[in-house]
């Protein structure tokens, strides 16, 4: 027991020394060998965690050969997808990418929202995995403790786990946060991991060799044993194999720790070529003895023994304490290397994307980059590491350390795999947009949380049993592990299928429907076409600055007077003769600030860089310029839209003004007309009434005649006023219609007699047409008024020898047409358009009307949803009246 602690601590000490020596060597520039392809390959082995080291055997016992998928996925990626990995590495190097969250946020226009989302996804997906490592170490420790104390003592797992957590956090902080720039790489950590990779491989191989040759007595007997055991007869399900292989492949690329060692810590993308065969070989060796150990464990150990611990318990049961110790160290190595790299990767994300943005916004944005910021970043990283390890510890406690934790490996895989569509889309498809990425990740993460993560916490903890089996609100198709009614599938595959489907679909569809911002567009081009570009990252350095050139440029931007004043002031401050100051860094700073007030910070920086730096402007500068330009363009297009709006409003105003002017002219004309129509009869009335008043000696016949004229002129005035009022009411639309039923022939008959037509009048009225039996539902009185008007006109104006009026009526599709055709001379073509206007008269004869009759008719027909028009080509005067046979009730209220 004490020996175990002693060995563990000693092992950790060795790792410390290795890491420290490596760091020293790297600092002294003797670290070339530290960056060999083999070290790179070994560092990739953090893929094999304690879960793989111990759990693969357990996996084999439970599900047979399926454990191979965990190795198959990464091997396929290394073999077949090395060009994708190479692209990732190249992008990571050119863009100085610090994490997978950084990669995706940079690709989509440096979106902070995406970075925060991915960071949370990574933390949520990795925490259970770290907890799993804690559990493995704690369990293996407990197994040892039990064995050494004869199976009687139970050690306190909680305390053990806590100590392990604290130790891991300490180690990580010590080596992971010595330097600020993540890209400067952690030589010490990588070296320690490489050593651990060797230790775990050697340990597993040693146990395997012991099992095959020490216990079973060689390869042949071993194979026989395997064939005889139930593991060998396990059925292989194709769907599960494909799903799990895909899952482990996706996780291999997306796991934050894998991304860290593969991309961030990468020194040379050519190392990938070695790793593409060496890493699969490593994995093959790791999996070589899994089956023998599993079979032997089942054979030797009592029923109910934990198969996850066979790697440890098989040697122990044979009294091979030394071998068991090596095995323990192998598991310990697997766990620690994973935890260290994972927490470094996560803490980088948390501090870069969550802590620092908050700190900068609180303190007002670090204008002066001093040592303070450096200190804050390091502190943030250290605190993040502690917090993440503690989070994992609490998770370990919460889940009770049960066997459920073993399944957590795959649960985590599905979580981090959600980043795959966005990542692959981001580096291969320029059309991918930020909104699309957000939607895809959001949906994928939501489905993972709901369908896999929450249920995995155990029944009843967050989601109730009823909800799990029956779905929320009794909606069975929403049950977390049977979405859309797909039942009976393994929860892992079920969630993988739905989350990846919706994730990818949302990402692609939304990307297609949205447009990338300029920054996104440029970043997208840089990512997708990374191989077509030369290495662009260079800042500008001062030196050959030409004060004169700066002056010319400044004059253009600031105006001659301001620019000269600024230069003179700076020259005086520097104590230089003349108006041109030396291009000192201070002066360039002042100038840049001044210019940025006019042209924007990025443009100013780029312009000064162009002159003072003698050449190269960094891509970031250019991107910022492009972004500013885009903003200006957006602004000017807004201005354009506003000016268009103004033009349109002005046009509308002009239109309304014209209409008002026209109305005013019409009104003047109307008043003038009314004045004329009123004054004319009044003139006669006044003249004759004065004559009557002043003449005593007038003949009685004359008196009677003059009184008659006065009388008829009074009637004419009254009629005029009636018509005017009628028209005013009709035009204002205030008329209320009085609907009633009457047959058309009745309406015509009564109109004819109201117009004063009798058998002895000089106008002969004849009727024909099929429509006269129709029963109308309309305002019969108003309709009659129109008819009377038209008939009276015929009577007044028809100049034929024997004036005749033909009234034809017919109906079609519910609309009635009544034509009034006389045999007179008709209305001249040029007058036909004006006869319906107010005060228009035809011909020179006075017929006692004021010219309002047809105007009133037109208004009435309009109210009755019909029309009245002149009907040309009938040989005489002809009017056509059309209207619906049944006026709808609604019309009443119009």
């Amino acid at each position, binding site marked *: 027991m004490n020996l175990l602690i002693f060995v563990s601590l000693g092992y950790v000490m060795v790792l410390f020394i290795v890491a420290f020596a490596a760091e020293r060597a790297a600092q002294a520039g003797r670290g070339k060998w530290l960056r060999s392809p083999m070290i790179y390959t070994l560092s990739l082995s953090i893929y094999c965690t304690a879960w793989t080291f111990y759990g693969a055997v357990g996996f084999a016992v439970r599900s047979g050969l399926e454990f191979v998928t965990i190795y198959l996925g990464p091997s396929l990626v290394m073999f077949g997808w090395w060009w994708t990995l190479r692209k990732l590495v190249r992008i990571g190097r050119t863009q100085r990418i610090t994490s997978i969250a950084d990669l995706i946020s940079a690709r989509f226009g440096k979106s902070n929202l995406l970075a925060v989302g991915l960071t949370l996804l990574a933390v949520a997906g990795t925490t259970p995995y770290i907890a799993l490592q804690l559990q493995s170490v704690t369990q293996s420790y407990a197994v040892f403790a039990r064995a050494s104390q004869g199976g009687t003592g139970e050690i306190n797992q909680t305390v053990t786990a806590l100590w392990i957590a604290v130790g891991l956090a300490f180690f990580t902080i010590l080596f992971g946060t010595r330097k600020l720039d993540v890209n400067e790489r952690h030589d010490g950590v990588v070296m320690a991991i490489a050593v651990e990779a060797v230790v775990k491989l050697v340990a597993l191989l040693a146990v395997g060799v012991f099992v095959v040759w020490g216990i079973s007595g060689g390869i042949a007997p071993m194979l026989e044993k395997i064939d005889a055991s139930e593991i060998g007869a396990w059925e292989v399900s194709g769907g599960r194999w494909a799903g799990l292989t895909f899952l482990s492949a996706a996780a291999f690329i997306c796991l934050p720790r894998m991304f860290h060692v593969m991309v961030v810590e990468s020194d040379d993308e050519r190392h990938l070529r070695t790793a593409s065969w060496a890493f699969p070989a490593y994995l093959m060796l790791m999996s070589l003895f899994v089956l023998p150990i599993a079979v032997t464990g089942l054979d030797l150990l009592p029923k109910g023994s934990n198969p996850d611990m066979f790697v440890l318990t098989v040697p122990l049961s044979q009294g091979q304490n030394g071998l068991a110790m090596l095995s323990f160290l192998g598991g310990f190595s697997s766990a620690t290397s994973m935890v260290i790299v994972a927490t470094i990767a996560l803490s980088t994300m948390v501090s870069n994307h969550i802590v620092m943005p908050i700190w900068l916004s609180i303190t007002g944005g670090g204008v002066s980059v001093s040592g303070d910021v450096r200190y804050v970043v390091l502190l943030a990283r250290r605190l993040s590491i502690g917090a993440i390890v503690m989070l994992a510890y609490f998770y370990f406690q919460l889940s009770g350390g049960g066997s459920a934790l073993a399944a957590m490996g795959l649960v985590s895989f599905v979580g981090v795999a959600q980043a795959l569509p966005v990542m692959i889309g981001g580096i291969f498809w320029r059309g991918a947009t930020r909104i699309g990425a957000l939607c895809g990740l959001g949906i994928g993460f939501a489905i993972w949380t709901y369908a896999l993560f929450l249920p995995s916490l155990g029944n009843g903890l967050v989601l109730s049993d009823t909800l799990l089996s029956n779905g929320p609100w009794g909606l069975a198709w929403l049950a977390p592990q049977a979405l859309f009614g797909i039942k009976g599938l393994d929860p892992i595959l079920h969630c993988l299928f739905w989350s990846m489907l919706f994730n990818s679909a949302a990402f692609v569809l939304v990307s297609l429907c949205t447009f990338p911002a300029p920054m996104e567009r440029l970043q997208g081009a840089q990512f997708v076409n990374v191989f077509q570009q030369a290495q662009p990252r260079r800042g500008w350095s001062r030196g050959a600055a030409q004060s004169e050139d700066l002056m010319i440029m400044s004059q253009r931007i600031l105006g001659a007077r301001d620019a000269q004043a600024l230069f003179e002031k700076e020259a005086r401050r520097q104590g230089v003769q003349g108006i041109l100051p030396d291009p000192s860094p201070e002066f360039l700073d002042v100038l840049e600030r001044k210019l940025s007030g006019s042209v924007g910070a990025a443009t100013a920086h780029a312009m000064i860089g162009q002159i003072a730096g003698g050449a190269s402007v960094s891509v970031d500068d250019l991107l910022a310029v492009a972004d500013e330009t885009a903003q200006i363009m957006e602004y000017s297009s807004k201005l354009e839209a506003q000016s268009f709006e103004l033009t349109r409003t002005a046009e509308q105003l002009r239109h309304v003004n014209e209409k008002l002017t026209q109305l005013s002219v019409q009104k003047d004309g109307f008043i003038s007309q009314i004045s*004329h129509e009123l004054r004319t009869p*009044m003139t006669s009335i006044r*003249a004759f009434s004065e*004559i009557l008043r002043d003449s005593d000696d007038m003949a009685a016949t004359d008196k009677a005649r003059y009184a008659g*004229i006065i009388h008829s002129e009074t009637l004419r005035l009254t009629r005029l006023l009636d018509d005017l009022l009628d028209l005013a009411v009709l035009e204002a639309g205030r008329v209320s219609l009085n609907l009633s039923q009457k047959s058309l022939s009745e309406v015509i008959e009564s109109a004819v007699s109201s117009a004063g037509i009798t058998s002895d009048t000089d106008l002969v009225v004849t009727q024909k047409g099929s429509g006269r039996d129709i029963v109308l539902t309309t305002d019969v009185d108003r309709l009659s008024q129109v008819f009377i008007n038209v008939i009276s006109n015929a009577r007044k104006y028809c100049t034929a020898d024997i004036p005749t009026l033909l009234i034809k009526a017919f109906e079609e599709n519910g609309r009635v047409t009544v034509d009034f055709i006389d045999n007179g001379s008709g209305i001249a073509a040029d007058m036909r358009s004006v006869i319906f206007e107010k005060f228009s008269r035809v011909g020179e004869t006075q017929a006692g009307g004021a010219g309002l009759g047809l105007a009133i008719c037109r208004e009435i027909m309009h109210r009755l949803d019909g029309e009245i028009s002149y009907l040309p080509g009938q040989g005489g005067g002809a009017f056509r009246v059309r209207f619906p046979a049944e006026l709808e009730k609604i019309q009443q209220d119009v």
Partner: protein
Amino acid sequence: MSKHVLLVEDEPNIIEAVSFLLSRDGWSVSTHSNGHDAADVIRAKQPDVLVLDVMLPGRSGFDILEDIRSEGVCRDVPVLMLTARGQTKDRERAERLGATRFMTKPFSNAEIIETLHELSGS
């Protein structure tokens, strides 16, 4: 010898009233009721005084006035213009075209007789 007055007016009742009044006052009255050929009729009849309505069928009183003032024998005949519209701009237009007097309908009988006496200088 009685003075000759020509009345150009289209409203029959007004023609009758004015004719009656002026005849009784001793004028020799002739009438004409459309605008088309009014200028020719005026030149042919050469009245001592002309009474001219504005709103006439065919041609307006203003056009007729402009016509007779521009050429022919009646360039200087006194003209009393009558109008039922009674707007200021009509009055101004009449004065500009050379109307001697301008009256708005309805007028008083005494007023029209007095004005005609004034215009004919009797």
